[in-house]
């Protein structure tokens, strides 16, 4: 029963992290940190105050960024 209550599907997770700072890693190894402004079922992501990291080093900053979902390896809540 308690296990059932702690069940958290991908949709639940995504709804829970909207508006929070997140960390997104792409399949290519590039990382993005920013505030999650919206996303959809394809894992397409819109970020605000985005920082782009290549090999762990800050390379770029973007006010708004859109990431196409097929490139996403994972989304992590910070």
């Amino acid at each position, binding site marked *: 029963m308690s296990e059932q209550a702690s069940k958290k*599907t*991908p949709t639940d997770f995504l709804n829970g992290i909207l508006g929070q700072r997140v960390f997104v890693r792409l399949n290519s190894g590039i990382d993005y940190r920013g505030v999650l402004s919206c996303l959809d079922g394809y894992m397409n992501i819109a970020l605000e105050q985005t920082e782009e990291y290549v090999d762990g080093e800050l390379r770029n900053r973007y006010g708004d960024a859109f990431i196409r979902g097929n490139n996403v390896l*994972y989304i992590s809540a910070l």
Partner: protein
Amino acid sequence: MAAPQLLPLELIDKCIGSRIWVVMKSEKEFVGTLQGFDDYVNMVLKDVTEYETKGDTKHVTSLKQILLNGNNICMLVPGGQGPTVACS
């Protein structure tokens, strides 16, 4: 007399709440507590360790909670402790 069958995704459903080892198609592995998954086997993992092999170097990253894209998942090992335990 048909043998009782357990579908692959039913097995994974039984793993919810326990540790699981996820091996990706590339040289990446994740170990974490499975919180849930969907039809594409996108998974929500808690207290995650990411293992990444780049040539000779191994990178280990700790993450509190992630949504892992199911697209690049190769294998799931219920109760798996990850590559460090498996190899030693």
